[in-house]
């Protein structure tokens, strides 16, 4: 019995080592860049990092990223001048684009369509509207030199707060313990494919075993609609509050949104109050091909082509000039 346990443990250890080796050699696990909180309380990636983003068990999506000097995934450095025409794309992971090679980003696609424009992509996973406006405000000098700023928002996610505060949750991912765990590529890989979910859920179940379970109230359709309406109103209040705090520039700022998942009240408010927006929903609706990746909901190359097209058409329409 002792021999069996010892030998099994030895085998498990050796197999784990071999798997770690396999995962590293075939680059099955994703690289995760380091996050930082800079002197302006802006959360971003630590400048000058390179790596690969991997999705799926068998590298179904494999792309290279490059974090530039400003801390964002882009093939170019952000040095706005008064001579060139620059456009900033600010948003979350969809703009960040770890799921596509950095030299084939939305910005690059726009630049191909309008060669006289330089596109700076300020994408960071989890950025909501507050994060975006805080960034623009914190780096005011830089953004003032940029001719036009496009802010990507998802109505249901990005307007949940009315003022900016540092998101400590994301930064906790940089704790010494997490950093240590991330050193094992096998562990990162196993986590990304969901194999660690059952033990994690079991752990939560055990931790919560003594806590009383509060039953979720069953809501009627009217009650659900009422809550939905309340939330929509709150999001609108948050939007107004943020636009007010950061002095939203209606001439230079444009929102990028999908009207299919945006409240009508919000859209009406934007229209009535002169907030410009690019609605990419029609581009996606008309597409016969899938616009998202296999393993997650991020835009695939085709989806990003469509987004670039929507933005390019808008930029051509407003005819940016220096």
């Amino acid at each position, binding site marked *: *019995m002792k021999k069996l346990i010892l030998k099994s443990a030895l*085998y498990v250890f050796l*197999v784990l080592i071999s*798997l770690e080796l*396999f995962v590293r050699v075939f680059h099955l696990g994703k690289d995760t860049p380091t996050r930082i909180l800079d002197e302006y309380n802006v959360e971003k990636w630590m400048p000058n990092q390179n790596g690969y983003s991997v999705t799926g068990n068998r590298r*179904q999506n494999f792309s290279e990223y490059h974090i530039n000097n400003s801390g964002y995934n882009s093939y170019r450095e952000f040095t706005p001048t008064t001579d060139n025409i620059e456009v900033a794309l600010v948003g979350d992971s969809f703009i960040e684009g770890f799921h596509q090679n950095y030299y084939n980003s939305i910005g690059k696609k726009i630049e191909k369509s309008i060669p006289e424009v330089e596109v700076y992509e300020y994408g960071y996973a989890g950025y909501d509207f507050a994060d975006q406006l805080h960034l623009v405000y914190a780096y005011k000098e830089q953004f003032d030199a940029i001719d036009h700023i496009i802010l990507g928002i998802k109505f249901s996610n990005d307007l949940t707060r009315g003022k900016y505060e540092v998101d400590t949750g994301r930064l906790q991912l940089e704790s010494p313990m997490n950093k240590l765990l991330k050193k094992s590529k096998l562990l990162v890989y196993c986590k990304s*494919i969901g*194999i660690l979910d059952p033990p994690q859920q*079991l752990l939560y179940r055990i931790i919560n075993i003594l806590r009383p379970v509060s039953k979720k109230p069953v809501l009627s359709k009217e009650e659900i609609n009422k809550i939905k309406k309340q939330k929509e109103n709150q999001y609108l209040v948050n939007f107004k509050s943020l636009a007010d705090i950061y002095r939203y520039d209606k001439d230079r700022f444009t929102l990028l949104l999908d009207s299919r998942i945006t409240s009508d009240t919000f859209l009406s408010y934007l229209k009535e109050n002169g907030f410009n927006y690019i609605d990419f929903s029609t581009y996606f609706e008309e597409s016969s091909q*899938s616009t998202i990746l296999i393993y997650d909901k991020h835009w695939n190359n085709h989806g990003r082509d469509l987004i670039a097209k929507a933005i390019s058409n808008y930029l051509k329409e407003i005819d940016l000039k220096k």
Partner: protein
Amino acid sequence: MLFNSLDFFIFLPVVFIVYWLLFYKNLKLQNIFVLVASYLFYGMWDWRFLFLILASTTVDYFVGQYIYSCDSNKQRKRWLWVSVIFNIGLLGFFKYYNFFIDSWVDLIDIFGYKQQSSWTLQIILPVGISFYTFQTMSYSLDIYYKRLTPTNDFISFATFVSFFPQLVAGPIERASNLLSQVTTKRTFNYKQCTEGLKLIIWGLFKKVVIADSIAPIVDDIFANYGSYPASTLILGVTLFSFQVYGDFSGYSDIAIGTAKLFGIELMSNFKFPNFSRNVAEYWQRWHVSLSTWFRHYVYIPLGGSRVSKLKSVRNIIIIFLVSGFWHGANWTFIAWGAIHALLYIPVFLMGRNRIYMNNVVAENSWFPSFKEILQILLTFSLVTFSRVFFRSESITDAFGFLKQIYNNFNFEIYEHPLGYRMIDYFVLLGFFLLYEYRIRRDERSPFKFKSKLVRFIAYTLVILGMLLFFDDNIDRSFIYFQF
């Protein structure tokens, strides 16, 4: 509790360690512990159905003793009928009741009588009922045929019926094999345990990598057969052949491996059926425990092959129809059984049904002969064709599927419903077949390599395969749980 769940990965080591550390010296305690563990294992699915197992156990325990103690054949037979009626009654109610009602309604509908099927009930099919009822019945039947003396130890008998590794999907053991081991003191055997662990790993590979990874493709093709060309439908049913094999033989390997950890040897259930050279050989290699059960308790009592050719053919038809019906309360399974009877009868009439009993393909060489390759391909194709009925939801769907192959006889490249690379699956199945061919001589030793290093690489690759094809979003239950 599923073998491929986290619950089982916690349950098994705990039971294993307690079993060998605390109850090592006392057989009675060992059996009580295994019984409790088995009931816990089953009860975690639905504790209410434990009463059915207990009822089946109690009935056959006493019936066995009554049969044994009776002098007259008439009385013995009467007691045997008690067991058969009780167990078949359980199966009949839980598994076939709605089927009979619906079939009756359909039948009278043919004669113009409209009847609402209001007698059908919302019945949950207890997992494993087809397996444990057959196992308990085999006990009473063996005592009736005087092949076995009944046990006076109820705990041992209950352990035999509910032994958790094989409780829900077999192998269906005969008392002469399993009960005798349950009533004998088990001692820890290192070699047996390591063999068990290897079988568990191999079984998991077959389930997680082969069966589960191709399941979404098969589900998609069978659900939308009307919109696919022949090439895709043929691909779908071929992949289903691999899916059902990986699923069920994977389960059996885990069951046999787990039993080995407790010092118990279960019978082999699968012996590489994909390399069968005719349908008769296929049935000597596929779901062996069920075939053996039917041969012992239905085919031989009917006269087997020792009667006239005509009666033998009748016996073959009966056995295949009953076997088909055992799988499920649906005409598709009966049709599947009938097709196998039609495939088996010519082999039987030509006297070729036993020629491959004691050898494997390429017995004394590295590669199979050209003739063997053709035989294997033909057998695989015929068996795969029958699976159109096995997999379809209804007879109408099965014929619709075949009609679509005929009507839309075109080739088109199939794309995975979730957008994954199809080539991955073809490469996987290619390697799997080659590996199975390499180990074809011994189904109980999947990692039989002289070199320790090669063996270690094989373990690593198998586990890596599980990672590469693991999919968190699919239904991970076993196909044969529904039977």
